[in-house]
């Protein structure tokens, strides 16, 4: 397991999947990177996303840069055709990043609304065991 962690700056309750903890474009780009399953260049992600939706290379480039700055992606300089370029890969696996985000959000909720969170969790647990008995 990786020692890296991700603390999201916000949580969007109405959003789906990774979009709840990342921007919509960031979530899409990260999903593509996970799907490709190898260190990728911006162009590879751009070509893949281009076939599915209208998107600019520079947009993908700056999104991947943002994901790197947020500590979600890692990158290194490598030798490509005619010059040096970046390749990116995820620092953490998808379950790791989800777990890390949940941990930070829960920690924050417990810190700010400790009693409410505890009683809600107890309530949830009770409901769950009642459902099982029934």
């Amino acid at each position, binding site marked *: 397991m990786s020692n890296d962690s991700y603390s999201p700056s916000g949580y969007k309750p109405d959003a789906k999947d990774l979009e709840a903890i990342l921007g919509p474009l960031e979530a899409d780009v990260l999903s593509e990177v996970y799907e490709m399953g190898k260190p990728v260049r911006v*162009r590879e992600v751009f070509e893949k996303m281009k076939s599915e939706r209208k*998107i*600019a290379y*520079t947009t993908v*480039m700056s999104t991947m840069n943002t994901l790197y700055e947020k500590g979600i992606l890692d990158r290194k300089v490598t*030798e*490509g*055709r005619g*010059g040096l370029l970046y390749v990116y890969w995820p620092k953490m696996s998808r379950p790791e990043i989800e777990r890390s985000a949940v941990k930070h959000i829960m920690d924050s909720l417990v810190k700010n609304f400790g009693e409410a969170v505890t009683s809600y969790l107890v309530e949830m647990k009770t409901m769950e065991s009642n459902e099982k008995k029934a």
Partner: protein
Amino acid sequence: MDVVDELLRIIMMPPLLQVVVTSAVVLGVTYILMKVLHLNNPRVRSFYFCLALMMPIVMYVLFTPSVWITRLMVERGFAPFPDVPSIDFVRVVEVNYVGVVCIIGLIFGTVTFLISNVFSISIVKRLQGVFEVKADEEPSLYGIVEKVAKKMGVTTPRIGLTEHLQPNAFTIGRGRNAMVVFTMGILNTLDVKELEAVAAHELAHIKNRDFSIMAVVTALKLVFFYNPVSYLAASMVSREREYLADEVGAKVMSRTRQLKSALIKISSVKTDQRSNFITAWTTSLFVYSQITSLKAAFTAHPNLDTRLRHIGGNTNSRGDTAKTVVVALLLGSTLFLAGGYISQPMRLVDQILFRVDESFGLRLMRFPDRGGHLEGAVTGVPRVVPPIEDMMAYKGKSIPSP
């Protein structure tokens, strides 16, 4: 060692040295006159260096070997001076190394010129990993380039991108086919106004037809690959075209300050450029307009300080054309004067140029007046023309009807 001996012999011959000295004197005097007469700006200077590059051809045309003219006369049966002993030629099958070197240069130059005109875009795209983006795929960058193109009065070029970290931009191809390429590094480094200034610089290359000029210059450089001066002249032409693109681009878009700051930013980013030598060299044959500023000697781009001093200079293409014509006239007249003063040694130049430029692997030699074969000649090889006295036209006889 035969090749080395032959080349050394040619180099050490006085006529060759005289050609070199004459060229140097002519170019030097013309340059001083350019300075004195205030004909000194990038456009004019770039044409001056083009002429310097073509000096060997100019010398050859001006001092055409008299033997060649005589041979043409003999072959056509035209003999204005009947008293002059007839001249005949034999083929001597012997390798002339200088001729071989010239042929190699000619082949190199011609092939590169043809390739750069037909395949340069696809070659550079493959070597540098350039991919083309359409207007709807990269609207903001396309918008910048389109705006500059409209202001400059040129067709909006195609846009290419590379993922290189080194901030750089360059143009490949000409006219409607031209493509301006930006690296990821430059898009990350510059702001919108600076990008506009860089786009203006690249479009100025298209407006100034630098691709065509530099394709010819590069081809000539390769034709005269054995002449060190040709490398210097070619790199000087390239530098002057860079100054000109800086001036024209900054002036048209009124982005003098932004171009300066863009150049400073570009030159301050240091990435370890470890590109393969073959790739870099091949690219340099077809890409003449990289914005990057390099300081090493003999590189196509001037150093940053000199370049910044040039930005904001005034250019006027109509005035420059007139100035270029004046410089060409100066160069020509200086050449004639120099040629006149040393006309006697120039006769020797005939011989060496004759051997260097015309024989191309075969030597043409004067046939002895007394008849018979030339010493060392391979016998049994057919003569190029029959002896002059056998020619009908020379004898004044009417040609019998068949």
